[in-house]
């Protein structure tokens, strides 16, 4: 059968992913690392669910946090009821409650939003997002007002010694749900509805003329997407033990769009990469610098301008080159471009951090430490170094980049020539 080798590769990739998820917390044992990979797991589900809309269905949503957030709210109330004994439910099934809640709101809100595609859809999702966020302030009983709803994930008797108190146990719960969700969303993309969603994305009119009600295709896709968003919401509720209005906010909705785009919406695995990077930016970088949001914004801009297909497309571009054993010609170019790029990055970081030091953070004095060197951000020398780095790094990077582009162009021309 022609599909056989592909399937084998698929099993290897899924097996490797599962293994990685099991092994990661055994290698990185710190509390911070566990927090980081736990959040990455949640973000992967959320971003993949978002990409069912954007990448697979061609629906640009500005309000996807509505489904994860409301899923999280329902989950937190369910959890509180369960811990009071009003509801029998093991904690490990809470994400399912979140998912069903997400799907329920998908049925309601989706019916309105998916009436139209394109810009109209985007605008309505923005409106629904604002509506729900404002409801969170209007109905403090359900949304908990400014403080949100808090909970405690540990309740009842431990099962086989597992009570989900320690973060590592929560991580493995997330890992199981993440793997399951990834597999199901991947499977969805290979069902009739998944394929027709692609068709509706490409050409809604033609889809109508082969028998499909495009409105219904969008609606069903959104409901399924909202289910997985709700699963992510349920897991977030377990991890943080608090759900606030921020969970349904436009910031969350924008974040998932950024994550999906950075990773690449054109490939199934793109959003997985995007989610991990995004969480790294938000969690890890925020620990190191106040300017993390600026870096995220710049990174996003750079991706949109130079690699609109996201990191996934950058990776996929290499395969034809590797298949023709030409990749080694590119390695020195990549190394040079990367090294000179680091110089520019250093110049950027130095400038941004010194600017923050002398403006936002000047109350604490202007002494700072970077790259292991202590210096005065108000002094002339550090700024001169920064300018020097900009000029030298910029020139070298530009040269390396052009040489890379040239080498790349030659290889592509050879490949195209060999094909025709």
């Amino acid at each position: 059968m022609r599909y056989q080798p592909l399937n084998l590769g698929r099993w290897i990739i899924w097996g490797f992913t599962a293994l990685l998820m099991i092994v990661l917390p055994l290698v990185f044992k710190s509390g911070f690392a566990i927090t980081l990979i736990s959040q990455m797991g949640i973000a992967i589900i959320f971003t993949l669910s978002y990409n069912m809309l954007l990448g697979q269905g061609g629906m640009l949503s500005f309000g996807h946090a509505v489904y994860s957030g409301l899923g999280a709210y329902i989950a937190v109330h369910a959890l509180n009821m369960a811990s009071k004994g009003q509801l029998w439910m093991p904690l490990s099934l809470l994400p399912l409650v979140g998912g069903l809640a997400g799907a329920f709101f998908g049925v309601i809100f989706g019916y309105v939003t998916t009436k139209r595609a394109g810009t109209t859809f985007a605008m309505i999702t923005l409106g629904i997002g604002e509506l729900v966020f404002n409801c969170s302030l209007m109905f403090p009983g359900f949304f908990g007002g400014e403080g949100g709803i808090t909970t405690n994930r540990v309740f009842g008797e431990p099962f086989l010694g597992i009570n989900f108190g320690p973060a590592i146990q929560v991580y493995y719960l997330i890992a199981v749900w993440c793997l399951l969700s990834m597999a199901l969303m991947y499977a969805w993309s290979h069902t009739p509805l998944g394929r027709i969603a692609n068709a509706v994305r490409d050409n809604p009119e033609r889809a109508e003329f082969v028998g499909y009600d495009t409105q219904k295709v969008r609606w069903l896709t959104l409901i399924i997407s909202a289910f997985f968003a709700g699963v992510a919401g349920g897991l977030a509720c377990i991890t943080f033990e608090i759900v606030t209005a921020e969970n349904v906010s436009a910031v969350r909705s924008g974040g998932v769009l950024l994550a999906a785009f950075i990773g690449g919406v054109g490939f199934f695995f793109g959003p997985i990469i995007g989610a991990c990077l995004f969480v790294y930016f938000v969690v890890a970088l925020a620990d190191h610098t106040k300017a993390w949001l600026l870096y995220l914004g710049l990174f996003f801009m750079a991706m949109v301008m130079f690699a609109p297909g996201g990191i996934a497309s950058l990776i996929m571009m290499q395969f034809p080159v590797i298949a023709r054993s030409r990749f080694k010609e590119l390695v020195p170019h990549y190394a040079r471009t990367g090294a000179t790029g680091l110089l520019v990055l250093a110049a950027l970081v130095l400038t941004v951090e010194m600017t923050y030091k002398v403006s936002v953070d000047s109350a604490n004095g202007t002494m700072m430490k970077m790259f292991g060197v202590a210096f005065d951000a108000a002094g002339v020398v550090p700024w001169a170094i920064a300018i020097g780095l900009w000029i030298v790094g910029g020139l070298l990077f530009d040269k390396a980049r052009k040489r890379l582009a040239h080498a790349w162009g030659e290889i592509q021309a050879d490949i195209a020539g060999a094909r025709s």
Partner: protein
Amino acid sequence: MNPGVTKPALELAGVKKSFGNTEIIRGVDLAIPKGERHALIGPNGAGKSTLFNLMSGRFPVSAGAIRLDGEDITGLKPFQINRRGLSRSFQITNIFHNLSVFENLRCAVLWALGYKYSFWHRLDSLADARRRAEEVLLAIGLESRRARPAGLLTYAEQRALEIGITIAGGAGVVLLDEPTAGMSRSETAHVVELVRSVTEGKTLLMVEHDMGVVFNLADRISVLVYGEVIATGTPEEIRANSAVQEAYLGGLHKEESGPEESHA
């Protein structure tokens, strides 16, 4: 006309269409019996494509009724009309650009095979969908392009795929809007054979400018001028019709007399 005992496959009764104050279709009556290959000809701006858009549900009619196998389909949405067995192609290629040729065809057969909005079937395990898509792939001669994204096909290949998507669902009534537009002579000959083979046993209505193609394929011809059918009949009758010659055919027919004979 043809008052047969069976209901016509496609019937238009007093169909009118206005855009604003402009009446584009000014009362068209047309009955196409089952199994007939019917050509709709007429000068540019006569309203041929508009008529197609009305029949396929793309635009609502302003007045009149359209019946498919005797059932009223006036005012139905395109997907509803398609499900009742009418499928159409487009003058400007209308395919799923990012999907492979094979996936384009598979998308076109899913509804007809009853998979609807299923998210519990695995596509690759649907043997009937694959078989039907492969059949059409073979019929339109694009086996070698199977995995290529449809957007990267040549123009002629895209036109063939356009026809493939149209017939893949197995609709009994097929509307083809200028299947040979913009094609070279050899490509046109190829498309004529393709259309002939894939519409075997079906009812075909096509808009076509190439008179060679029209006289070669059509059992009957209708001539549309300024939103009205001025004549309907066999190719011989149309050729002999003085009103048609006067209004339209005369000049064009002379130009196109070459390819008509050249096809064997």
